């Protein structure tokens, strides 16, 4: 299964994602520069965390106009799996691949710590190795992770079971409905603020994030 890690100017979790896919999941992986436009040979694309384009204007606002993003939209429309982590989630909402937006944390602070998230939908390509209600210990590291959307969008998210992860216990950023991660209606695009790639090896304090990558792999294999 071929993974691609998209690199924007200012991405800083690209190497972590690459390392997890290559050395933990032991799957082939390539970096994709934001100017590249050849994506057909990939099975899953990862938009990593960081500060693409310095977070200028709004987080993800400029990255969404990178040449690679037009191709990622086509890739996703064809059913290709895309996971956006942190800044990657922000880019996916700015690009319209996921509904809503991410705004400044309620308390204004940048928060970097381990949190508990709850699995709300275990029937997605990204969560099939989890159970509904399962808690994961995964770190967050963001200043703009407060998910907002209008009431109609929230109703749709609930109705179509697009809320994949919620914060369990304290909500660190004030997000609507405690949302930590959502997917699109087709279930092939996931955006989440917590960083599973930072919690995929015991030495890092938690391996819970690996379950998400395991799920993707399982899904891709069963799809073949």
């Amino acid at each position, binding site marked *: 299964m071929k993974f691609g890690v998209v690199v924007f100017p200012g991405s800083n979790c690209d190497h972590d994602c690459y390392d997890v896919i290559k050395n933990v999941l032991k799957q082939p992986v390539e970096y994709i520069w934001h100017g590249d436009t050849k994506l057909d040979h990939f099975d899953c694309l990862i938009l990593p965390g960081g500060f693409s384009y310095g977070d200028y*204007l709004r987080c993800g606002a400029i990255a969404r*106009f990178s040449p690679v993003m037009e191709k990622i939209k086509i890739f996703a429309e064809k059913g290709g799996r895309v996971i956006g982590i942190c800044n990657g989630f922000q880019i996916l909402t700015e690009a319209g691949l996921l509904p809503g*937006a991410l705004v*400044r944390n309620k308390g204004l602070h940048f928060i970097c710590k381990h949190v508990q998230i709850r699995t709300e939908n275990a029937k997605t390509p990204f969560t099939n190795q989890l159970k509904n209600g399962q808690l994961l210990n995964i770190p967050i590291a963001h200043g703009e992770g407060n998910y*907002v959307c209008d009431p109609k969008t929230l109703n749709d998210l609930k109705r179509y079971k697009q809320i994949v992860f919620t914060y369990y216990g304290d909500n660190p950023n004030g997000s609507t409905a405690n949302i930590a991660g959502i997917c699109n209606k087709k279930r092939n695009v996931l955006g989440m603020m917590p960083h599973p790639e930072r919690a995929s090896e015991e030495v890092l304090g938690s391996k819970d994030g690996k379950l998400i990558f395991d799920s993707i792999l399982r899904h891709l294999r069963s799809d073949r």
Partner: protein
Amino acid sequence: MAKVKIYITAKKGILDPAGKAAEAALQSLGYKNASNVHIGKYIELDIQGKQINKEIAEMCQKLLANPIIEDYHFEVSGE
């Protein structure tokens, strides 16, 4: 050549924590009469052409503002 001033503000109902923090600071400085503090963005640009209003609105919708969370308005002068 026209000069354009663009103002971007958080939509009503969208939390504006920076505005809230500034408001609390003003209150603690003794300005008890200040309320509804909101912090937005101000963008200036020069532009040429005939359909300036249409183009600026497009720029705001596509890039400069996020219509999901922000409102915008602009002033064109010096044509």
